[in-house]
């Protein structure tokens, strides 16, 4: 028997959902227009007044918001509430040096936690469970997102955070975690460690895995399910909207149910901006219809996927999104962290170097690796290995502090990187995703 956290929403009729969405959208648009100068200007330019928005169908009259808009208004330019009403700040990588900052009120955090709690229940979680959170805690939304969701449900959280894999395995064994939450590549790594230690996965109590924050394949799912003897589920989120729990699979593993009473999804043609019907692939756009602090209007996620409104076998009526198949921009997700090639360019320029570089992303022992190849020039060159290694370290340090992930720096001979007319091919992704 499937379980629901809030059946009155998750299994509501389409009319009921539309009613909720329409009411929230009207309120949110008013908030955005009145309290965010950026939106007032955008609406005015389009000739749209908050009064023109009467139902969820009117959403197509509204302008889009882009990641760049968050950067341009860094850090709090799109925040609609006074500072005193904020309850938490998260951030993720921006396309260049500056981060994308996201703010939440107490109600926003509650909505996010509710979405995450629904997700945990949808994959078979119960309040009697021990939820082992191995996502990183911090500005990254992964750790705290599932933490709050599990608490909201009334389950017990083990806030392990990421890293120290031996300890992760020990906790799985000794505490008897029921649900494991982390990135899929880390789950692979934990599974491998379990095997290397000669532990029978069947002896572990863990039965559910909730994995997200990076792309993964069905093959990886089977691999993880086998190595830990669990059912593995995909969860989706992006910090601009809420972090993990924006959508999540149910036990049917047939697409991710979107918490559409908080995060209203649309699929658009990335070129024309026209809304596309169910089943058609395009760019995923979210409107944070329930949000107070950051009422993002039609935020372009750059993820490519499709939606279906068909009722799911699990009994939920909420719209499902398919696993994103790619991006409309050049963003990479490495170890769950968003990385833009332009960030590397700005680090090199800051160091006074030529922005000639190549990124090689690979997955070794189930962990993503990033190598940044940089061309040597006469300013950097020295006749001693020690000094050249210092150059490598300096670049690696600057990359680490901007990207929040470690990168291996390799110095190349000048002119050894391919020069192409137009857009240079900067990225080589060798992962089989």
């Amino acid at each position, binding site marked *: 028997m499937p379980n629901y956290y809030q059946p009155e929403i998750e299994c509501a009729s389409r009319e009921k959902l539309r009613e909720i969405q329409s009411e929230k959208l009207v309120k949110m648009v008013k908030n955005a227009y009145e309290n965010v100068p950026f939106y007032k200007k955008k609406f005015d330019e389009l000739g749209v007044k908050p009064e023109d928005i009467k139902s969820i169908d009117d959403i197509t009259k509204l302008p889009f918001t882009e990641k760049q808009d968050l950067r341009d208004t860094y850090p709090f330019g799109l925040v609609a509430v006074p500072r005193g009403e904020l309850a938490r700040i998260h951030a993720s990588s921006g396309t260049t040096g500056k981060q994308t900052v996201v703010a939440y009120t107490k109600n926003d955090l509650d909505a996010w936690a509710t979405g995450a709690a629904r997700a945990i229940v949808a994959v078979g979680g119960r309040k009697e469970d021990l939820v082992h959170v191995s996502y990183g805690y911090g500005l990254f939304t992964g750790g705290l997102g599932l933490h709050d969701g599990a608490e909201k449900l009334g389950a017990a959280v083990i806030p392990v955070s990421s890293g120290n894999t031996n300890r992760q395995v020990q906790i799985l064994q000794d505490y008897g975690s029921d649900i494991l939450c982390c990135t899929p590549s880390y789950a692979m790594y934990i599974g491998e460690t379990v095997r290397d230690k000669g532990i029978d996965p069947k002896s572990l109590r863990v039965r559910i895995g909730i994995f997200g924050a990076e792309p993964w394949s069905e093959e990886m799912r089977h691999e993880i399910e086998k190595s830990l003897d669990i059912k593995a589920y995909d969860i989706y989120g992006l910090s601009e909207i809420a972090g993990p729990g924006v959508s999540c699979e149910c036990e049917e593993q047939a697409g991710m149910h979107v918490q559409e009473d908080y995060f209203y999804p649309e699929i658009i043609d990335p070129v024309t901006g026209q809304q596309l019907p169910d089943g058609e692939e395009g760019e995923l756009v979210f409107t944070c219809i329930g949000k107070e602090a950051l009422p993002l209007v039609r935020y372009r996620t750059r993820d490519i996927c499709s939606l279906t409104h068909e009722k799911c076998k699990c009994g939920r009526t909420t719209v499902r999104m398919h696993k994103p198949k790619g991006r409309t921009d050049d963003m990479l997700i490495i170890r769950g962290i968003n990385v833009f090639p332009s960030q590397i360019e700005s680090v090199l320029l800051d160091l006074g170097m030529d922005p000639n570089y190549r990124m090689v992303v690979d997955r070794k022992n189930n962990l993503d690796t990033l190598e940044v190849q940089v061309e*040597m*020039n*006469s300013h950097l*060159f*020295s*006749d*001693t*290995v*020690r000094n*050249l*290694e210092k150059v490598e370290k300096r670049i690696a340090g600057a990359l680490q502090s901007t990207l929040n992930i470690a990168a291996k720096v*390799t*110095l*190349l*001979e*000048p*002119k*050894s990187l391919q020069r192409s007319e137009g857009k240079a091919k900067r990225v080589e992704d060798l992962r089989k995703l």
Partner: protein
Amino acid sequence: MQIQQLSVFIENKPGRLAEITEALAEAKIDIRAISVADTSDFGILRVIVDRPQDAVDALKAHGMTVSLTNVIAVGIPDVSGSFAKVVRLLSDKGFDLEYMYAFISRDKGKAFVIVRVDQGQKAAEALQADGWEILTQDVLSHM
């Protein structure tokens, strides 16, 4: 009193050393001594030649990163313990040795050790004052 060494950046990939040495051959440069310092992904080729500036031009024309570094060439007689004395002297006077390598001259009947230290000029003077032969660029070019 110091001589000039070519320092060339090389990626660790097949054929690079051949390309560099061929470029020097093309420019009719005579190599006196050669040494490579390497890490897992790059190396620094250090070369003593008869015409350093011409060699630099030739390598630059091939798009290579090359620089000239001042080093000391100390003549060491073929007598047990000679080199130990040189190293002891440098150490006692507080010169930091970055790297070194050697070559043998048939004409002069002795070995020459190429030493790279910080404060190279002072180190060369100290060695000379102690009676060691220090090669000049001019002598080296005509060896």
